[in-house]
Protein backbone atom coordinates (compact mmCIF):
# COMPACT_ATOMS: atom_id res chain seq x y z
CA UNK A 1 0.00 0.00 0.00
CA UNK A 2 1.05 3.60 -0.55
CA UNK A 3 1.38 6.22 2.18
CA UNK A 4 0.30 9.43 0.48
CA UNK A 5 -1.98 11.35 2.83
CA UNK A 6 -2.94 11.05 6.48
CA UNK A 7 -6.56 11.21 5.27
CA UNK A 8 -6.11 7.72 3.80
CA UNK A 9 -5.80 6.24 7.30
CA UNK A 10 -8.38 5.30 9.90
CA UNK A 11 -7.79 5.91 13.61
CA UNK A 12 -7.24 2.17 14.09
CA UNK A 13 -4.59 2.07 11.38
CA UNK A 14 -2.81 5.10 12.83
CA UNK A 15 -2.83 3.55 16.29
CA UNK A 16 -1.43 0.34 14.89
CA UNK A 17 1.44 2.22 13.21
CA UNK A 18 2.19 4.01 16.48
CA UNK A 19 2.14 0.68 18.39
CA UNK A 20 4.61 -0.83 15.94
CA UNK A 21 6.76 2.34 16.17
CA UNK A 22 6.84 1.93 19.96
CA UNK A 23 8.43 -1.50 19.52
CA UNK A 24 11.00 -0.06 17.10
CA UNK A 25 12.42 2.44 19.62
CA UNK A 26 15.24 0.21 21.02
CA UNK A 27 16.33 -0.66 17.46
CA UNK A 28 16.16 3.00 16.43
CA UNK A 29 18.42 3.85 19.35
CA UNK A 30 20.89 1.14 18.37
CA UNK A 31 20.31 -0.80 21.62
CA UNK A 32 18.98 -3.78 19.69
CA UNK A 33 19.84 -5.12 16.26
CA UNK A 34 17.34 -6.11 13.58
CA UNK A 35 17.49 -7.83 10.20
CA UNK A 36 13.77 -7.41 9.55
CA UNK A 37 14.28 -5.75 6.15
CA UNK A 38 17.51 -7.48 5.15
CA UNK A 39 17.79 -7.73 1.37
CA UNK A 40 15.27 -4.93 0.85
CA UNK A 41 16.13 -1.75 -1.04
CA UNK A 42 14.73 1.74 -0.43
CA UNK A 43 14.66 4.14 -3.40
CA UNK A 44 15.00 7.59 -1.88
CA UNK A 45 14.07 10.36 -4.32
CA UNK A 46 14.48 13.87 -2.94
CA UNK A 47 13.67 16.52 -5.52
CA UNK A 48 13.97 19.11 -2.77
CA UNK A 49 16.48 19.43 0.04
CA UNK A 50 15.53 17.94 3.37
CA UNK A 51 17.82 17.01 6.19
CA UNK A 52 15.67 15.43 8.85
CA UNK A 53 13.21 13.59 6.68
CA UNK A 54 15.77 12.08 4.32
CA UNK A 55 18.28 11.10 6.99
CA UNK A 56 15.64 9.60 9.27
CA UNK A 57 14.22 7.49 6.42
CA UNK A 58 17.67 6.25 5.54
CA UNK A 59 18.49 5.59 9.19
CA UNK A 60 15.18 3.74 9.56
CA UNK A 61 15.89 1.50 6.57
CA UNK A 62 19.46 0.74 7.60
CA UNK A 63 18.60 0.08 11.26
CA UNK A 64 16.28 -2.66 9.99
CA UNK A 65 19.02 -4.21 7.87
CA UNK A 66 17.91 -2.76 4.52
CA UNK A 67 19.81 -0.64 2.04
CA UNK A 68 19.08 2.65 0.30
CA UNK A 69 19.82 4.25 -3.07
CA UNK A 70 18.68 7.49 -4.65
CA UNK A 71 19.47 11.18 -4.90
CA UNK A 72 19.10 14.17 -2.63
CA UNK A 73 18.88 16.80 -5.36
CA UNK A 74 17.72 16.34 -8.94
CA UNK A 75 20.80 18.15 -10.35
CA UNK A 76 23.01 15.71 -12.25
CA UNK A 77 20.31 13.02 -12.43
CA UNK A 78 18.17 12.17 -15.43
CA UNK A 79 15.56 14.49 -13.92
CA UNK A 80 17.75 17.46 -14.88
CA UNK A 81 17.60 16.19 -18.48
CA UNK A 82 13.85 16.60 -18.46
CA UNK A 83 12.69 13.10 -17.57
CA UNK A 84 9.12 12.98 -16.31
CA UNK A 85 8.44 11.95 -12.74
CA UNK A 86 6.42 9.03 -14.10
CA UNK A 87 9.47 7.65 -15.96
CA UNK A 88 11.85 8.19 -13.05
CA UNK A 89 9.41 6.38 -10.78
CA UNK A 90 9.07 3.41 -13.14
CA UNK A 91 12.85 3.11 -13.31
CA UNK A 92 13.47 3.36 -9.56
CA UNK A 93 10.52 1.03 -8.97
CA UNK A 94 12.46 -1.61 -10.90
CA UNK A 95 15.59 -1.08 -8.78
CA UNK A 96 14.02 -1.00 -5.33
CA UNK A 97 11.31 -2.44 -3.09
CA UNK A 98 9.84 0.81 -1.74
CA UNK A 99 10.06 4.43 -2.91
CA UNK A 100 10.27 7.45 -0.64
CA UNK A 101 9.49 10.67 -2.52
CA UNK A 102 9.91 14.35 -1.67
CA UNK A 103 8.78 16.58 -4.52
CA UNK A 104 7.96 20.29 -4.93
CA UNK A 105 4.70 19.63 -6.82
CA UNK A 106 1.46 18.85 -5.00
CA UNK A 107 0.00 15.48 -5.85
CA UNK A 108 3.39 14.08 -6.91
CA UNK A 109 3.20 11.16 -4.48
CA UNK A 110 -0.28 10.16 -5.66
CA UNK A 111 0.98 10.21 -9.24
CA UNK A 112 4.04 8.15 -8.27
CA UNK A 113 1.73 5.65 -6.63
CA UNK A 114 -0.11 5.20 -9.92
CA UNK A 115 3.08 4.34 -11.79
CA UNK A 116 4.92 2.24 -9.19
CA UNK A 117 4.18 -1.41 -8.51
CA UNK A 118 5.94 -1.20 -5.16
CA UNK A 119 4.75 0.97 -2.27
CA UNK A 120 5.33 4.75 -2.41
CA UNK A 121 5.78 6.75 0.78
CA UNK A 122 5.15 10.50 0.55
CA UNK A 123 7.94 12.47 2.24
CA UNK A 124 6.28 15.82 1.45
CA UNK A 125 4.78 17.09 -1.80
CA UNK A 126 4.97 20.85 -2.14
CA UNK A 127 2.38 22.61 -0.01
CA UNK A 128 0.42 19.34 0.09
CA UNK A 129 0.77 16.37 2.39
CA UNK A 130 3.55 15.15 4.67
CA UNK A 131 1.97 12.16 6.40
CA UNK A 132 5.08 10.75 8.10
CA UNK A 133 5.61 14.09 9.88
CA UNK A 134 2.03 13.90 11.15
CA UNK A 135 2.53 10.32 12.34
CA UNK A 136 5.70 11.19 14.23
CA UNK A 137 3.95 14.21 15.78
CA UNK A 138 1.09 11.99 16.93
CA UNK A 139 3.61 9.44 18.21
CA UNK A 140 5.40 12.15 20.21
CA UNK A 141 2.16 13.47 21.72
CA UNK A 142 1.01 9.96 22.67
CA UNK A 143 4.39 8.97 24.09
CA UNK A 144 4.92 12.14 26.13
CA UNK A 145 1.37 12.75 27.39
CA UNK A 146 0.15 9.11 27.32
CA UNK A 147 -2.90 10.05 25.24
CA UNK A 148 -4.08 11.99 22.21
CA UNK A 149 -7.80 12.32 22.83
CA UNK A 150 -8.69 14.98 25.37
CA UNK A 151 -5.43 16.90 25.06
CA UNK A 152 -5.63 20.63 24.50
CA UNK A 153 -3.21 21.27 21.64
CA UNK A 154 -2.27 24.88 20.93
CA UNK A 155 -0.75 25.32 17.49
CA UNK A 156 1.11 28.57 16.89
CA UNK A 157 2.95 30.11 13.95
CA UNK A 158 2.35 30.15 10.23
CA UNK A 159 -0.92 28.26 10.02
CA UNK A 160 -1.80 29.49 6.56
CA UNK A 161 1.06 28.02 4.55
CA UNK A 162 2.37 25.34 6.93
CA UNK A 163 1.48 21.92 5.54
CA UNK A 164 2.61 20.26 8.77
CA UNK A 165 -0.06 22.01 10.81
CA UNK A 166 -2.81 21.29 8.28
CA UNK A 167 -2.32 17.52 8.35
CA UNK A 168 -1.63 17.46 12.08
CA UNK A 169 -4.74 19.43 13.03
CA UNK A 170 -6.91 17.24 10.79
CA UNK A 171 -5.47 14.11 12.40
CA UNK A 172 -5.85 15.51 15.92
CA UNK A 173 -9.48 16.30 15.19
CA UNK A 174 -9.99 12.64 14.21
CA UNK A 175 -8.73 11.66 17.65
CA UNK A 176 -10.91 14.20 19.43
CA UNK A 177 -8.23 16.56 20.72
CA UNK A 178 -9.16 20.12 21.66
CA UNK A 179 -7.53 22.58 19.27
CA UNK A 180 -6.55 26.23 19.50
CA UNK A 181 -4.95 28.04 16.56
CA UNK A 182 -2.75 31.03 17.36
CA UNK A 183 -1.51 33.22 14.51
CA UNK A 184 -1.65 36.79 13.28
CA UNK A 185 -4.87 37.21 11.24
CA UNK A 186 -2.93 37.18 7.94
CA UNK A 187 -1.45 33.74 8.72
CA UNK A 188 -4.46 32.04 10.34
CA UNK A 189 -5.68 28.56 9.45
CA UNK A 190 -7.40 28.52 6.03
CA UNK A 191 -11.20 28.26 6.17
CA UNK A 192 -11.33 24.98 4.24
CA UNK A 193 -9.18 23.30 6.91
CA UNK A 194 -11.33 24.70 9.69
CA UNK A 195 -14.41 23.37 7.91
CA UNK A 196 -12.75 19.97 7.56
CA UNK A 197 -11.97 19.91 11.29
CA UNK A 198 -15.49 21.01 12.19
CA UNK A 199 -16.86 18.18 10.05
CA UNK A 200 -15.23 15.83 12.60
CA UNK A 201 -17.24 17.44 15.38
CA UNK A 202 -14.41 19.57 16.79
CA UNK A 203 -14.81 23.34 17.11
CA UNK A 204 -11.32 24.85 17.16
CA UNK A 205 -10.66 28.10 19.03
CA UNK A 206 -8.97 30.90 17.13
CA UNK A 207 -6.74 33.40 18.87
CA UNK A 208 -4.06 35.91 18.05
CA UNK A 209 -2.56 35.95 21.55
CA UNK A 210 -0.36 33.08 22.67
CA UNK A 211 -0.14 34.45 26.21
CA UNK A 212 -3.89 34.12 26.71
CA UNK A 213 -4.18 30.48 25.73
CA UNK A 214 -0.84 28.91 26.66
CA UNK A 215 -1.75 28.44 30.36
CA UNK A 216 -4.40 25.89 29.48
CA UNK A 217 -2.33 23.94 26.92
CA UNK A 218 -1.23 20.31 27.25
CA UNK A 219 0.75 20.52 24.03
CA UNK A 220 2.24 23.67 22.50
CA UNK A 221 3.09 23.04 18.85
CA UNK A 222 5.28 25.84 17.47
CA UNK A 223 6.09 26.41 13.80
CA UNK A 224 8.33 28.85 12.06
CA UNK A 225 6.99 32.12 10.70
CA UNK A 226 8.78 32.71 7.43
CA UNK A 227 10.20 36.16 6.86
CA UNK A 228 9.38 36.09 3.13
CA UNK A 229 5.64 36.01 3.92
CA UNK A 230 5.85 39.64 5.06
CA UNK A 231 6.07 42.67 2.81
CA UNK A 232 8.26 44.59 5.25
CA UNK A 233 10.83 43.68 7.86
CA UNK A 234 9.29 45.76 10.66
CA UNK A 235 5.99 43.91 10.39
CA UNK A 236 7.83 40.57 10.50
CA UNK A 237 9.78 41.57 13.63
CA UNK A 238 6.57 42.57 15.39
CA UNK A 239 4.83 39.28 14.60
CA UNK A 240 7.87 37.08 15.27
CA UNK A 241 8.35 38.79 18.64
CA UNK A 242 4.72 38.24 19.66
CA UNK A 243 4.92 34.47 19.25
CA UNK A 244 8.31 33.85 20.76
CA UNK A 245 8.37 31.06 23.31
CA UNK A 246 10.75 31.92 26.15
CA UNK A 247 10.95 31.44 29.94
CA UNK A 248 8.74 34.48 30.50
CA UNK A 249 6.01 32.94 28.34
CA UNK A 250 6.27 29.65 30.25
CA UNK A 251 5.95 30.94 33.80
CA UNK A 252 2.28 30.02 34.29
CA UNK A 253 1.94 26.98 32.04
CA UNK A 254 0.93 23.48 33.20
CA UNK A 255 3.84 21.60 34.74
CA UNK A 256 3.65 18.73 32.27
CA UNK A 257 2.89 20.80 29.17
CA UNK A 258 5.13 19.75 26.27
CA UNK A 259 6.56 21.97 23.53
CA UNK A 260 6.96 20.55 20.03
CA UNK A 261 8.45 21.99 16.85
CA UNK A 262 8.95 20.28 13.47
CA UNK A 263 12.35 22.06 13.17
CA UNK A 264 14.35 23.80 11.86
CA UNK A 265 13.62 26.65 14.26
CA UNK A 266 14.92 30.16 13.93
CA UNK A 267 13.97 32.43 16.82
CA UNK A 268 10.47 31.21 17.72
CA UNK A 269 11.69 28.96 20.55
CA UNK A 270 14.40 30.55 22.67
CA UNK A 271 17.35 28.19 23.29
CA UNK A 272 16.94 28.86 27.05
CA UNK A 273 13.80 26.69 26.83
CA UNK A 274 15.80 23.68 25.57
CA UNK A 275 16.88 22.67 29.07
CA UNK A 276 13.35 22.61 30.53
CA UNK A 277 11.14 19.56 30.99
CA UNK A 278 8.71 21.10 28.49
CA UNK A 279 11.06 20.92 25.50
CA UNK A 280 10.38 17.76 23.46
CA UNK A 281 11.39 18.87 19.95
CA UNK A 282 14.61 16.91 19.85
CA UNK A 283 12.81 13.75 21.04
CA UNK A 284 10.25 14.54 18.33
CA UNK A 285 13.01 14.64 15.70
CA UNK A 286 14.35 11.30 16.95
CA UNK A 287 10.83 9.82 16.84
CA UNK A 288 10.92 10.21 13.08
CA UNK A 289 13.18 7.15 12.99
CA UNK A 290 11.00 4.58 14.85
CA UNK A 291 7.85 5.87 13.12
CA UNK A 292 9.44 5.56 9.67
CA UNK A 293 10.82 2.15 10.64
CA UNK A 294 7.30 1.06 11.49
CA UNK A 295 5.93 2.34 8.19
CA UNK A 296 8.67 0.73 6.11
CA UNK A 297 8.29 -2.56 7.97
CA UNK A 298 4.52 -2.47 7.49
CA UNK A 299 4.50 -1.59 3.78
CA UNK A 300 7.28 -4.10 3.04
CA UNK A 301 5.57 -6.86 4.97
CA UNK A 302 8.31 -7.13 7.63
CA UNK A 303 5.57 -6.89 10.26
CA UNK A 304 1.80 -7.22 9.99
Amino acid sequence: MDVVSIRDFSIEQIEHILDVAEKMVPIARGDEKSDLLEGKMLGSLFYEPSTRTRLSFEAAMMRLGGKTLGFDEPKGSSVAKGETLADTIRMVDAYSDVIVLRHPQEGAARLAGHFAENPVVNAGDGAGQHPTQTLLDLFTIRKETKRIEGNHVVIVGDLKYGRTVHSLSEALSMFGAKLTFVAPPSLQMPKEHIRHIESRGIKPSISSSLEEVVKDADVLYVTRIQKERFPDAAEYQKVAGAYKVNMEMLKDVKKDMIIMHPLPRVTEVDPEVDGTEHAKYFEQAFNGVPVRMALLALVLGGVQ
Partner: protein
Amino acid sequence: MKEFKVTPIRNGTVIDHIDVGMALKVLRIIGVDASVNYTVSVLMHVPSKKGGWKDIVKIEDRELDPSELDKIALVSSNATINIIRDYNVAEKFVVEVPDRVKGIMKCSNPGCITSRNEPVEPEFIVESKKPIALKCVYCDRLTTNVAENLI
Protein backbone atom coordinates in the same frame (compact mmCIF):
# COMPACT_ATOMS: atom_id res chain seq x y z
CA MET B 1 -45.14 33.67 -41.65
CA LYS B 2 -42.89 33.35 -38.62
CA GLU B 3 -39.33 34.35 -39.27
CA PHE B 4 -36.56 32.05 -38.06
CA LYS B 5 -33.05 33.24 -37.47
CA VAL B 6 -31.96 29.61 -37.53
CA THR B 7 -34.22 27.02 -39.04
CA PRO B 8 -35.32 23.90 -37.15
CA ILE B 9 -33.19 20.85 -37.82
CA ARG B 10 -34.58 17.64 -39.27
CA ASN B 11 -32.43 15.15 -37.40
CA GLY B 12 -29.82 15.61 -34.71
CA THR B 13 -29.28 17.07 -31.22
CA VAL B 14 -30.34 20.44 -29.83
CA ILE B 15 -28.71 21.60 -26.62
CA ASP B 16 -31.07 24.23 -25.20
CA HIS B 17 -31.08 26.47 -22.12
CA ILE B 18 -27.31 26.78 -22.05
CA ASP B 19 -26.26 29.48 -19.56
CA VAL B 20 -25.80 32.65 -21.58
CA GLY B 21 -22.24 33.03 -22.88
CA MET B 22 -21.35 29.36 -22.37
CA ALA B 23 -22.13 27.99 -25.86
CA LEU B 24 -18.51 27.92 -27.00
CA LYS B 25 -17.41 26.24 -23.77
CA VAL B 26 -20.09 23.62 -24.35
CA LEU B 27 -18.71 22.95 -27.84
CA ARG B 28 -15.26 22.52 -26.35
CA ILE B 29 -16.49 20.09 -23.71
CA ILE B 30 -18.28 17.86 -26.21
CA GLY B 31 -15.34 18.00 -28.60
CA VAL B 32 -16.87 19.91 -31.49
CA ASP B 33 -14.07 21.46 -33.52
CA ALA B 34 -13.06 21.98 -37.16
CA SER B 35 -12.64 18.24 -37.71
CA VAL B 36 -16.33 17.30 -37.37
CA ASN B 37 -18.28 16.29 -40.46
CA TYR B 38 -21.69 17.64 -39.52
CA THR B 39 -23.25 21.11 -39.41
CA VAL B 40 -23.29 22.93 -36.11
CA SER B 41 -25.30 26.11 -35.45
CA VAL B 42 -24.59 28.24 -32.42
CA LEU B 43 -27.06 30.79 -31.13
CA MET B 44 -25.78 33.12 -28.46
CA HIS B 45 -27.73 35.54 -26.33
CA VAL B 46 -31.25 34.68 -27.40
CA PRO B 47 -34.32 35.49 -25.27
CA SER B 48 -35.51 32.59 -23.14
CA LYS B 49 -39.20 31.85 -22.61
CA LYS B 50 -38.31 31.24 -18.97
CA GLY B 51 -37.03 34.84 -18.82
CA GLY B 52 -33.58 36.25 -19.33
CA TRP B 53 -31.14 35.04 -21.95
CA LYS B 54 -29.73 31.73 -23.07
CA ASP B 55 -27.48 30.09 -25.66
CA ILE B 56 -28.47 27.21 -27.96
CA VAL B 57 -26.38 24.70 -29.94
CA LYS B 58 -27.87 22.67 -32.83
CA ILE B 59 -26.02 19.69 -34.20
CA GLU B 60 -27.37 18.21 -37.42
CA ASP B 61 -27.54 14.52 -38.30
CA ARG B 62 -25.83 13.50 -35.12
CA GLU B 63 -27.38 12.05 -31.95
CA LEU B 64 -24.84 12.62 -29.22
CA ASP B 65 -24.34 10.05 -26.48
CA PRO B 66 -26.15 11.13 -23.27
CA SER B 67 -23.19 10.16 -21.04
CA GLU B 68 -20.99 12.44 -23.14
CA LEU B 69 -23.50 15.24 -22.79
CA ASP B 70 -23.65 15.10 -18.99
CA LYS B 71 -20.29 16.87 -18.95
CA ILE B 72 -22.13 19.97 -20.18
CA ALA B 73 -23.65 20.28 -16.71
CA LEU B 74 -20.19 21.30 -15.44
CA VAL B 75 -20.54 24.69 -17.15
CA SER B 76 -24.29 24.90 -17.55
CA SER B 77 -26.33 22.94 -15.05
CA ASN B 78 -29.75 23.83 -16.53
CA ALA B 79 -29.02 22.77 -20.10
CA THR B 80 -31.57 20.45 -21.75
CA ILE B 81 -30.89 17.96 -24.53
CA ASN B 82 -33.41 17.37 -27.29
CA ILE B 83 -32.87 14.49 -29.68
CA ILE B 84 -34.63 15.44 -32.94
CA ARG B 85 -35.95 12.88 -35.42
CA ASP B 86 -37.83 14.10 -38.50
CA TYR B 87 -38.39 17.57 -36.99
CA ASN B 88 -39.92 16.13 -33.80
CA VAL B 89 -38.44 15.95 -30.32
CA ALA B 90 -37.96 12.21 -29.91
CA GLU B 91 -36.18 12.36 -26.55
CA LYS B 92 -35.64 15.13 -24.03
CA PHE B 93 -33.59 15.18 -20.87
CA VAL B 94 -31.76 17.53 -18.49
CA VAL B 95 -27.99 17.14 -18.15
CA GLU B 96 -26.67 15.80 -14.85
CA VAL B 97 -23.28 16.43 -13.27
CA PRO B 98 -21.26 13.17 -13.39
CA ASP B 99 -19.52 11.73 -10.28
CA ARG B 100 -16.04 11.74 -11.81
CA VAL B 101 -14.52 13.99 -14.45
CA LYS B 102 -11.48 13.13 -16.52
CA GLY B 103 -9.67 14.78 -19.40
CA ILE B 104 -11.77 17.89 -19.99
CA MET B 105 -10.31 20.33 -17.50
CA LYS B 106 -7.06 21.05 -15.73
CA CYS B 107 -6.52 21.45 -12.01
CA SER B 108 -6.81 25.07 -10.85
CA ASN B 109 -3.75 24.60 -8.64
CA PRO B 110 -0.68 25.77 -10.61
CA GLY B 111 1.49 23.77 -8.19
CA CYS B 112 -0.30 20.51 -9.00
CA ILE B 113 1.82 17.75 -10.53
CA THR B 114 -0.70 17.43 -13.38
CA SER B 115 0.26 20.95 -14.54
CA ARG B 116 3.68 19.55 -15.45
CA ASN B 117 4.60 17.49 -18.45
CA GLU B 118 3.48 14.17 -16.95
CA PRO B 119 1.70 11.40 -18.87
CA VAL B 120 -1.56 11.68 -16.94
CA GLU B 121 -4.92 13.27 -17.61
CA PRO B 122 -6.21 15.50 -14.82
CA GLU B 123 -8.95 13.68 -12.94
CA PHE B 124 -11.50 14.92 -10.43
CA ILE B 125 -14.02 13.61 -7.97
CA VAL B 126 -17.20 15.69 -7.85
CA GLU B 127 -17.49 16.83 -4.23
CA SER B 128 -20.53 19.05 -4.73
CA LYS B 129 -22.88 19.34 -7.68
CA LYS B 130 -24.56 22.61 -6.70
CA PRO B 131 -22.54 24.77 -6.47
CA ILE B 132 -20.08 22.77 -8.50
CA ALA B 133 -16.86 21.72 -6.71
CA LEU B 134 -14.38 19.20 -8.11
CA LYS B 135 -11.53 17.70 -6.08
CA CYS B 136 -8.30 16.84 -7.89
CA VAL B 137 -7.45 13.17 -7.27
CA TYR B 138 -3.76 14.10 -7.22
CA CYS B 139 -3.42 17.25 -5.13
CA ASP B 140 -6.85 17.35 -3.37
CA ARG B 141 -7.39 21.00 -4.38
CA LEU B 142 -11.00 22.03 -5.03
CA THR B 143 -11.82 23.69 -8.35
CA THR B 144 -15.12 25.56 -8.54
CA ASN B 145 -14.77 27.39 -11.85
CA VAL B 146 -14.83 24.74 -14.54
CA ALA B 147 -15.25 27.12 -17.49
CA GLU B 148 -11.96 28.87 -16.69
CA ASN B 149 -10.04 25.60 -16.48
CA LEU B 150 -11.20 23.76 -19.59
CA ILE B 151 -8.37 22.13 -21.51
